């Protein structure tokens, strides 16, 4: 029961982007089209799940005073691994995400979950928390990406829906990200008020 709760929390109730409002920087940067958003979600999911798992596993041997440096070592190791693997086996995705991959290190969702969850909970719960948070991040990022791509470029996942000339370029520029996130947050709040 508690396992299910840990998995579920991140998806909507504690959605990292739309509820906890963490990890906004990469969200703004890579959500200008759906493909980038999906690629970033996959990379973050890999790092978040692996780092949650390792940090939960070593939590008994991690002294309190140096836990943050240890978290960062674990996180940056996984980020570098995913960077190499992406470069080697998914060069097209790497070309699109290249500059943002190293920035996963400072994505506060990952450090935040390490500190708030993985450091205090058993391995299985932590992995599930990572899965849930990753799904929540992916859900938010891909929705924002799809909305911005349709409104700003007239395409979705690169498929042309209508003439580019009709698209509002502002939506794929940084202001479009703020507008979309704001609207989605408002929508989510409204929904929650109605359900509860």
């Amino acid at each position, binding site marked *: 029961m508690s396992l299910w709760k840990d998995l579920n929390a991140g998806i909507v109730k504690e959605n990292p982007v739309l509820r906890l409002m963490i990890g906004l920087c990469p969200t703004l940067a890579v959500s200008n089209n759906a493909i980038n958003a999906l690629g970033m979600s996959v990379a973050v999911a890999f790092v978040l799940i692996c780092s949650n798992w390792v940090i939960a596993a070593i939590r008994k041997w991690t002294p309190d005073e140096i836990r943050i440096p240890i978290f960062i*070592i674990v996180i940056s190791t996984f980020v570098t691994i995913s960077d190499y693997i992406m470069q080697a086996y998914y060069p097209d995705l790497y070309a699109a995400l290249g500059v943002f991959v190293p920035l996963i290190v400072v994505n506060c969702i990952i450090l935040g979950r390490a500190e708030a969850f993985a450091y205090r909970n058993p391995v299985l719960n932590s992995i599930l928390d990572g899965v849930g948070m990753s799904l929540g991040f992916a859900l938010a990022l891909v929705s924002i990406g799809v909305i911005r791509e349709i409104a700003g470029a007239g395409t979705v996942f690169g498929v042309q829906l209508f003439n580019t000339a009709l698209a509002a370029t502002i939506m794929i520029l940084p202001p479009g990200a703020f507008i979309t996130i704001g609207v989605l947050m408002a929508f989510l709040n409204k929904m929650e008020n109605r359900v509860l």
Partner: protein
Amino acid sequence: MKRIMNLAMILMVFCVISAGGLAYVYLFTQPQIDKNAKLSLENSLREVLPGSADFEEVKCGEAQAYKSDKGYAVLVTPRGYGGPVKMLVGVDKEGKVVRVKVLDQKETPGLGARVIQPEFLNQFSGKSESDKLEPKQDIDAITGATITSRAACQGVKQALKCRRKIR
């Protein structure tokens, strides 16, 4: 004091494990990464100089160029709006532009980033040093991206000048 030493030791152990893991991943991904870089450069070269047999690296000034039996492909990086625009310009033996390809750019999405589209780049095909190569004159600029358009023209001009120097 003892406590501090202890903490430092623990931290060091974590660092060593992490470094070891990374070295291992690096060793088995690096050959593939190098291969990808070479392959993608070669594909781009073949795109700007179709039908070329083999490419040979040549220098012209500070720019990098590649020589083949069809002409030269010159790598230029004019300054755009968001940073350098890395582009490869294929020039045939008569000094005419064959094709232009943008390898890397950080221009504004939706505006300057349209510099990668063939509608814009194909305008350069067939141009030579006797052409003006100015946006709004013999090249249609990208709407809302004057600086990027100018950078692309500048890049092609540089490449043409460069090719003349090699000869």
